[in-house]
């Protein structure tokens, strides 16, 4: 499955990446799967996306929870809890 990854704010800075095209194996089916898959890249991924870290995720620009299934060609964004206003 092909995905377009986006990272924002402190995550973007810590990872040194704002956007990335990626193809993930068949076994990666949900947002949670993807997060685990990315942590397996090692540092800084393992630290920034570690399970204990409070993150938000958006699928095709809508906030979703970790159990949400991925969609082919989707835009998936990871970011810290928002602080606007």
């Amino acid at each position, binding site marked *: 499955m092909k995905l377009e990854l*986006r990272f*924002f*704010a*402190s995550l973007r800075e810590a990872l040194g990446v704002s956007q990335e095209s990626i193809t993930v194996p068949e076994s990666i089916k949900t947002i949670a799967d993807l997060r685990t898959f990315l942590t397996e890249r090692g540092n800084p991924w393992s630290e920034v996306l570690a399970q204990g870290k409070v993150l938000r995720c*958006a699928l095709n*620009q*809508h*906030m979703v929870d970790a159990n949400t299934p991925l969609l082919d060609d989707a835009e998936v*964004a990871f*970011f*810290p*809890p*928002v*602080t*606007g*206003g």
Partner: protein
Amino acid sequence: MPIRIQEDDFDISTEIALLRKGYPRVGAVVTFLGTVRDMNDGTQVKGMTLEHYPGMTEKALQEILDQAKARWDIYQTLVIHRIGSLLPEDQIVLVVVTSAHRGEAFSACEFIMDYLKTAAPFWKKEDTPEGARWVDARITDDDAMARWNKR
């Protein structure tokens, strides 16, 4: 446009006048104006940079306004949120709601701000004497949002 994300400052009187023009049925205009403080969590703030998620920001704000319109008897809504570099005393965010009577507009305006604080993808990075730091989300913002689900 009822939703604007911009670097430029805005004039609240101009925005209200534009929104009301040609709508004589409006009897109440409620506004919220958010501004940059020079202190946060006990530390001096010299300035801040606001980042957002272009595309998703507009969608999230539209969803918030749609919910407010479905819930309260209001006429028009406007949200302006600034991005980029801001200094203490600068205006950050403006929410305007019009309705026939004040009650609906007050509630809708507060709901829109509470929702924006937890669901619109903006992030603040503060410039302090100890260096730059990303602002942590507040639990009180989640609490403020949660109470709307109970009403």
